C-alpha cells in the first residue's frame, strides 16, 4: 500500500513538474526576462551616444523630385576616402528617380 501511494505521488509530482515546465516554455521570451505573453520583452545594450551628429549628417530623405544627376549611385565623399567601385548591394539603375515619401494624405 505504502509503495503504491509513493508511486502515485511520484507520478503526480512528475506530471505537475512537466506541466509547469510546459507553461514556462509556452511563455517564452528573450533575454531571460519575464516576458510571458509577449515576446519582445528585452532591452538593447545600454548606452546610445549621439555625439558627432550635426549639419551634414543627413539621416532623412530628399524631397520628392530630387535630381540624382544621372548617377547609378554616388560613392564620392566616403569617410575612408576610398570610393568602392563595387558595392555589396545592387544599386538602383541610373534611370530610376530618387524615391521619397508618399504624397497622398489619408482619406484623399
Amino acid at each position: 500500500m505504502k509503495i503504491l501511494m509513493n508511486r502515485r505521488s511520484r507520478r503526480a509530482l512528475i506530471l505537475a513538474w512537466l506541466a509547469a515546465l510546459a507553461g514556462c516554455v509556452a511563455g517564452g521570451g528573450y533575454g531571460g526576462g519575464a516576458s510571458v505573453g509577449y515576446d519582445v520583452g528585452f532591452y538593447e545594450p545600454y548606452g546610445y551616444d549621439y555625439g558627432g551628429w550635426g549639419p551634414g549628417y543627413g539621416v532623412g530623405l530628399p524631397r520628392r523630385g530630387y535630381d540624382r544627376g544621372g548617377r547609378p549611385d554616388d560613392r564620392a565623399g566616403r569617410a575612408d576616402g576610398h570610393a568602392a567601385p563595387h558595392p555589396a548591394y545592387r544599386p538602383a539603375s541610373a534611370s530610376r528617380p530618387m524615391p521619397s515619401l508618399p504624397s497622398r494624405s489619408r482619406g484623399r
Partner: protein
Amino acid sequence: MNGRHRGKDGVLVRLSLGALLSVALVAVAAAASFVLPPLVQPASSERHAGKVIWADLVTPDLAAAKRFYGALFGWSFNDIHTGASDYSVALLDGRPVGGLYQHTLRSGEQRQPAWLTFISVRDVADAEHSILAHGGKLLAPPRLYAERGRQAVFADPQGAVFAVLQSSSGDPEDVLAAPGEWIWSSVLTRDPDQDAAFYQNVFGYEVFEMPGEDGAMHIVLSSEDVARASLNTLPAGGAAKRHPHWLNFVRVTSATDTITRVASLGGRVLVQPFRDRHGGLVAVVADPAGAPFGLLEWTDADSKDTAK
C-alpha cells in the same frame, strides 16, 4: 509514528501539486490568451512588403511612458493586461500608431529601453529563412498573436535589432504620415554597404546612395517607389558606446517646439535640431526611461513632385 509521517507527506505532496499546477496553468493561460489588436480596421488586402508598419516600445515604466507620449504627441492608449504582460496600444485620432510594453529591469541592470521596428513581410517563415541565410540572427522565434498576425524578432549582421510582421489585417495604406505619427526610420550602422546588401536581399529593396557632405555613407532603401528607410554610418568618435540600431522618427510641425516639450516632460534632447537634406529640421530625443527616437519636420509640400 508512521501514520503521522504519511499524513505530513500527503499534505506536502498535495501542496506541491497545487502550487506546480497553478504555475503551469497561469503561464499557459497568459501565453495563450495574449491578444493584440489588428493593425488595420477594417481589415484590408493591402500588403507593402518592406514598409515599416509598427513600432513597440519596451520600457520599464509603462505609466511614465504613457504620460510622456500622451502629452507630447496627443496619443491616447488602450491597455491590455493579460497574465504577467502589460501592454498598451497608442492611438492617434483613433488609429493605432504603436505599442508600449512594460518590461521590468532587474535592479542594477543596465539595459537600453528602445523602440522596436516592425517591417512588413508576406510570410514570416520565408523571411526567417532569408534573414538567417544572409547573416542575421534570430532573437525571438515566429509567433502568432491573435488578430495582429505572425511576428519574429531578429538582429541584422551588424547587430541592429528589428522585427518582421505578417499582419493578419493587411498593412496600413501608403499615405503621408500625419504629425504625431511615425514617418521615417534609419539604421545607424558601422557598415551601411554590407547592411544595405542584407536588407536588399531579405526585403527586395531598391538601393539609392546619397552624396554625404560629412564623408559618411547615406543609403536610402525603397520599395514600390516609396522611400522606406535610410542606412547611415554611425558618426565617428565614441565608438565603444555606439552599437548599430534602428531609429524611428515621428513627424512634427516644429522640432524646436517639440524638444522644449520633451525637456519639460522629463525627456532628454540627444541631438539638437539641425537642417536635414529636405530642408526641414531633424532632432533626436529620449523619453524619460532613455528610449531614443527622432523628430522630423516634413511639410505636405516636401512630398509633392518638384522634379527639375
